[in-house]
């Protein structure tokens, strides 16, 4: 089952926020712990991601996101806990899992002296993909014109898009992306977001880390927030905002010939009364409801502002 648009996602059950609930499981993480000496990078993380889900994995720097992804792709071994990818256990079934996923790292890892096409042809051969798919992937990421240029001549954005093209060549069941839209211009960002929605519509599971909260709000079906190695919340973006929203109003009014501004919290009785007074007694010039963004939720939950 492919996920619906955001308003449908918001109706999905949220009682078990760390599980995908309705769909088959592509990724199951149970009690994952990764330690480097005495430092615990990931601490008893448990969550699951369903097939065809676009899952956002967020957290401040050093939260343990990249470590978790490294375990999911088999590049690191967990200290303890269970990881299952499409029914295969990691790290035991690493060889079986490898063809099932694509991984777009945060830093590009192309063969610089090769052209974009040569890079993709190599991976097409390794994945036994028909070479016609190379041109198709280049076209989807709008790289056809630059396909025969050496990668060292590419801009950062083009390199990122080439990475994505490389990793969708073999039509993986799971796609891990680490900051996929970093360094992309507005248009390219939209191209990538559209591509990710298309992939999930076809049943590909997308596991995404990003610091772009607008992106999370726009495209993710569910979001997990990690802080200091621990999962602190997992839900749909809409539910996050509904649960954690702070209703505020910005009031502008005239008093003694001067225009004054005041931000009022509607969940506070005294401030609500103050708003009523402004409307009743002052010359109210403008009332503006303050939108509560996902970024505010993130900052609130990770304790960077509100503690």
């Amino acid at each position, binding site marked *: 089952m492919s996920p619906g648009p955001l308003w449908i996602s918001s109706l999905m059950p949220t009682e078990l926020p760390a599980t995908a609930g309705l769909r088959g499981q592509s990724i199951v993480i149970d009690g994952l712990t990764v330690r480097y000496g005495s430092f615990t990078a990931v601490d008893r993380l448990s969550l699951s991601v369903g097939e065809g889900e676009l899952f956002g994995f967020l957290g401040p720097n050093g939260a343990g996101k990249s470590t978790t992804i490294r375990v999911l*792709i*088999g*590049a*690191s071994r967990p200290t303890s806990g269970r990881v299952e990818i499409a029914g295969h256990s990691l790290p035991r079934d690493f*060889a079986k899992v*490898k*063809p099932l*996923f694509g*991984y777009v*790292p945060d*830093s*590009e*890892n*192309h*063969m*610089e*002296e*090769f052209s974009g096409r*040569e890079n993709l042809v*190599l*991976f097409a*051969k*390794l*994945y*036994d993909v028909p070479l016609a798919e190379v041109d198709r992937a280049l076209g989807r990421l709008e790289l056809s014109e630059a396909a025969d240029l050496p990668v060292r001549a590419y801009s950062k954005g083009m390199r990122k898009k080439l990475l994505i093209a*490389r990793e969708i060549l073999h039509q993986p069941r799971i796609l891990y992306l680490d900051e996929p839209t970093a360094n992309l211009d507005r248009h390219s960002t939209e191209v990538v977001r559209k591509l990710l929605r298309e992939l999930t519509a076809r049943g590909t599971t997308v596991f995404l880390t990003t610091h772009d909260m607008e992106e999370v709000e726009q495209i993710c079906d569910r979001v997990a927030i990690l802080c200091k190695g621990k999962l602190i919340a997992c839900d749909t973006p809409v539910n996050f905002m509904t649960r954690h929203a702070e209703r505020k109003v910005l009031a502008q009014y005239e008093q003694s010939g001067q225009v004054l501004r005041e931000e009022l919290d509607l969940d506070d009785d005294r401030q609500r009364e103050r708003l009523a007074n402004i409307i009743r007694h002052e010359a109210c010039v403008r009332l503006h409801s303050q939108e509560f963004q996902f970024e505010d939720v993130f900052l609130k939950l990770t304790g960077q502002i509100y503690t």
Partner: protein
Amino acid sequence: MMPRLDKVRTLVGREALRLLKNPSALMVLGLLVAFSLLLALSRNEKSPALSCWIVHPDSLLTSEAGGVSSDFIEKLTEAAKQTKTIRVLPLSRIAVFREQRMYPPLTCAIELLELPADDGSTTQLSVTYRHPGGKSDVLEPFLRWFWPIAVDHFGQVQVVEQAPAASRPTSATALVMERLQSGSLKDLMSEELAAAILLLVVQFVTCCQLIVSFTSQDRERGTLTALALSPITMSELLQAKILFHLLLSALGCGAVIAVLKPSALTHASLWATLLLTSLGLCSVGMVIASLTKTQSGASLLALCYMLVGAVVFYLATKFSAFAQLKSFAFENYGFGMLFLSLQRPIPLARATDLAPMLALVVGWLTTATLLFRTRGWR
């Protein structure tokens, strides 16, 4: 699990494409081949070969000395017919003045003498090489002509050069190594020696330096991780890398041999030695690349390996306490075998240096495989 040939071929193709797009690597290889061409051209300017007399006790023609059958002299005489500069004569035909045998000026002499053994019951054959010195090719008659026949016959030869006070058992390989380390390279610079040195350099560049450079670059850029996460196995990746560098080494060495010593191209012992040396150097390269995190670190470690090798050979030659050290280096056997195999084909059954070399190379290869699979790509 058997390697999938199509995947290995794809990966070998990738390495080849990398080399083609890397002008500096191509330039190094080109320069090495150009250097061998220069050596080949300078060969024509060499002075005429020294004449050499091989003298032997009359008894050697009829009896055995030190377990040496008389057909050794027959072999020498037969071989001498092919050259006008070598003469095989009984001792009785050499004039003696004040206990010194009289040879014509600027002539080399290889004296085969019977010496009583320690127990007095048997005799030993002693080989004394006398040469006028000072010319660049004084050792050539010995190294090029007499020594291969002697080794073929005896397996090991006791050599006394310029009649030192006490003779000591040594092989031509050891003699060559000693002269190299004592700095008198000029005296030894035969075309076989030049070719052997050049072959070692070509192998070091193609198998060790390039594999270190390419692999650590892969690792630093993250391309090794990208490849490791694709459906290929780490074994296939390792095999492809080693196979490509072996092919490159064979190509480079083939070019050098074709230019300097074309007749040696058909010597099986030469190719067996080249294969083992190249495989050993590839393994060393993979170990270095797996142990370092950056390309610059890996290049420096490769340089350290080369310098450590030089120090070990120096210590092993100068101080008897370290004499056994060099027997742990496959390059020690490789160099001697290359030198000998360039002169004449050595039957593989008699190429005893190949066995310890093989053991050492297998050790390096096992270490490289383990390191590369566990930490090389991470």
